[in-house]
């Protein structure tokens, strides 16, 4: 079964609005809604209500164009429109559309909640694949009889969602692909496809009902292939070479000829342990001891599941103190290490008010790294990966993750952007060496680079305009220039000529002259 929520972001926003269901008259007077997101060409409309379509707004339209369609609002204009409205109340004035930025995360989370809610009808329910899902699939094999058959179940679902102010379209078919296509492009709000009949039902539907990409759709359109029936008339063997593997795979999935992997939503049981106090406690030793006990209990649960702790939160119940949060580089079950981190975090924490209880929760778990031991291996054999992980955890707890970083060179020619710092606790990315200058050029870069270039006081210039005396030391040798012109997309164009100045006192500076202002700056030192 496919349950489609047409214009889902819009429906979610309207359903989340507090208050009772608006009367039909009020609903008609609702302002048009436009939801936009950042696309390839700036902000673009992703979803708009039917009221907004009266303004000529449609999905894909740039936001600038939407704004140009709206009347310019000035105080005088507002007054005159108000007067007009007062004069002829018969005319329904077009309400100004409400523009709202898309929130795909919230949309997905709400949809996941609904999928969990659907577990009352079937144990297997999940979201459609894709970045912005709008449908839920339900495997109702065997459970439909409990609700008066397929129609009974579909009608009940429709009624329950209507109570939540959510409008749906339902299709039940042998395959998920067919149910998706028929729910999105079929005529009926509830479509029940008899077993083995999906080919006949899908035939008159447009090819978009096969969940194919826009490129393939456009290619088919050029050949005047509009419906699935027309597509089926084309030689099957020629489809992959002409339109890619996706088309044939989608067609087979819709017709039930190919299997499709669907990921079900499952309720996750929270992993937590709690210790309530009879009276509020501020004694640090007591809290440390309770933390140790709770951690032991939590680790017992985790060991039963053969998983390790990746992120841990310790809530101080009834207190204004912020929860203690631990994020680890790799999942672990080592009590010693976790306790050390907890103490390191807690020793800087102030408990102004008494703590009524402690709740420890495993927010994220994962498989701990297990290495196969070699013949004659002892405990001290290669302890480095674990030692490094523990060091990174300790440093991140004490200094904060933003101060424990790994460095990656980027292909940006502007020196201050040529290096990117990423927290060690963030997802590891492989080092990209594409576009990195050759080693000989890298060696000529300074080992100390100022984040902001400092103005350089040049005491004397040579005839060709280069510094002859800097910092009361004469310049013995000038290397360069290395011209860097870049960064137009960041703001004003960066135009610099870089030089290496070797001073008589043995110091080497990396300086540049700004080609617009002709000012000299010190950017680095060859320490």
């Amino acid at each position, binding site marked *: 079964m496919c349950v489609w929520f047409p214009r889902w972001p819009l429906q979610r926003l309207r359903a989340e609005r507090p208050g009772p269901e608006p009367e039909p008259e009020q609903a008609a007077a609702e302002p048009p809604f436009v939801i936009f997101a950042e696309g390839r060409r700036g902000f673009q409309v992703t979803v708009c209500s039917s009221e907004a379509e009266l303004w000529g707004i449609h999905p894909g339209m740039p936001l600038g164009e939407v704004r140009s369609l709206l009347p310019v609002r000035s105080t005088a204009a507002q007054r005159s429109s108000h007067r007009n409205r007062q004069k002829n109340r018969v005319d329904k004035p077009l309400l100004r559309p409400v523009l709202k930025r898309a929130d795909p995360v919230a949309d997905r989370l709400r949809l996941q909640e609904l999928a969990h809610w659907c577990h009352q009808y079937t144990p297997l329910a999940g979201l459609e694949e894709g970045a912005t899902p709008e449908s839920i699939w339900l495997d109702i094999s065997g459970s439909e009889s409990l609700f008066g058959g397929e129609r009974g179940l579909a009608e009940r679902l429709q009624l329950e969602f209507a109570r939540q102010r959510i409008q749906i379209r339902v299709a039940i078919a042998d395959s998920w692909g067919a149910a998706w296509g028929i729910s999105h492009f079929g005529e009926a709000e509830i479509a029940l496809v008899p077993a083995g009949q999906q080919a006949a039902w899908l035939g008159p539907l447009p090819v978009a009902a096969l969940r194919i990409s826009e490129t393939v759709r456009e290619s088919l359109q050029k050949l005047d292939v509009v419906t699935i029936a027309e597509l089926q008339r084309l030689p099957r063997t020629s489809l992959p070479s002409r339109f890619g593997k996706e088309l044939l795979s989608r067609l087979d999935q819709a017709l039930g000829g190919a299997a499709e992997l669907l990921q079900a939503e499952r309720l996750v049981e929270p992993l937590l342990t709690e210790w309530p106090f009879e009276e509020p406690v501020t004694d640090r030793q007591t809290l440390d001891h309770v933390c140790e006990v709770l951690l032991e209990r939590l680790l017992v649960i985790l060991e039963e599941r053969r998983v390790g702790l990746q992120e841990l939160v310790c809530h101080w119940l009834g207190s204004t103190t912020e929860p203690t949060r631990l994020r680890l580089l790799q999942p672990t079950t080592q009590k010693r290490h976790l306790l050390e981190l907890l103490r390191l975090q807690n020793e800087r924490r102030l408990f102004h008010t008494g703590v009524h209880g402690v709740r420890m929760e495993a927010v994220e778990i994962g498989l701990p790294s297990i290495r196969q031991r070699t013949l*004659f291996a002892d405990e001290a054999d290669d302890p480095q990966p674990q030692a490094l992980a523990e060091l990174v955890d300790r440093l991140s707890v004490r200094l904060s993750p933003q101060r424990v970083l790994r460095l990656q060179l980027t292909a940006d020619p502007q020196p201050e952007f040529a290096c990117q710092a990423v927290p060690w606790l963030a997802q590891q990315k492989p080092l990209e060496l594409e576009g990195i200058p050759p080693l000989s050029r890298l060696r000529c870069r300074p080992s100390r680079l100022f984040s902001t270039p400092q103005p350089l006081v040049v005491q004397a210039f040579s005839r060709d305009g280069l510094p002859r005396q800097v910092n009361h030391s004469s310049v013995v040798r000038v290397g360069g220039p290395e011209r860097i012109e870049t960064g137009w997309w960041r703001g004003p164009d960066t135009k610099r000529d870089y030089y290496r100045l070797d001073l008589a006192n*043995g110091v080497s500076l990396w300086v540049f002259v700004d080609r617009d202002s002709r000012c000299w700056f010190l950017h680095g030192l060859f320490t």
Partner: protein
Amino acid sequence: MQENELLAEASPNPTQRAETLHALRQICRGTSIRGASSRGISSPFTTQTESRGRLSTGLPALDALLPERGIEPGWLVEWLAPVEGCGVSVLALQGVRPALARQPVWAVVDGMGEFHPAAALGWGISIEMLLWLRPASVADTAWTVEQCLRCPAVGVTWIQADRLPERVLQRWKIAAEAGGGIGVLFRPATAARQASWADLRWLVQPRPTLAHVEGKRIRVELLSCRGRCHEGGAVELDVCDATGDVRLVSSLATATSPRRAAGA
């Protein structure tokens, strides 16, 4: 009596047993550098210094000044320079690669946030396992360095330490011995007059730059080294970033007197 001796021979003491097991482990690894060297097989990546458990400074000229021709794991190495920007870090970078071959992590403690890895990459040091740490206070810096030195995964801990209390250096020394990595400290030349817990101290003096000589000339003096009386050894090195060469400046032969030269 004879029986007891035989029994003693048959069951070696625990130390011998541990040594035998250790040797067996080395043979099992087979391809490991240590295993190979213990069997007298020389690896192209192993210098004479490394094969004896010591680490090279990366510069044979500096190795020659040291008593065992290398530095021991767990040492603190001080580089004293009179002025910043004289190229001392290029010399210190040469020793990073041999140390990272044993323990792969390079910790750079840089409160200012001005370390630039391009030069290190240019000198052939991988920055994949670089741990760039930016402590916000002096106390955090001291703690961070100690943690890094104590960690067995960290091969080199790199720090610019301008002013340090003696006890901090002492703690670092103990931590380095526990972790087995190398601590590389950059300090001003004025610190040469102070006592230090560092095992090895180099004093760097930039030589006047010559317009016709490519690169930079630096004099490196051995101030003190653990296990060696002060003999005042010093070398002059030419460092060329463009070609990636660090060469010993060839010293000229003692000038003979004109009379002797003339065969008189």
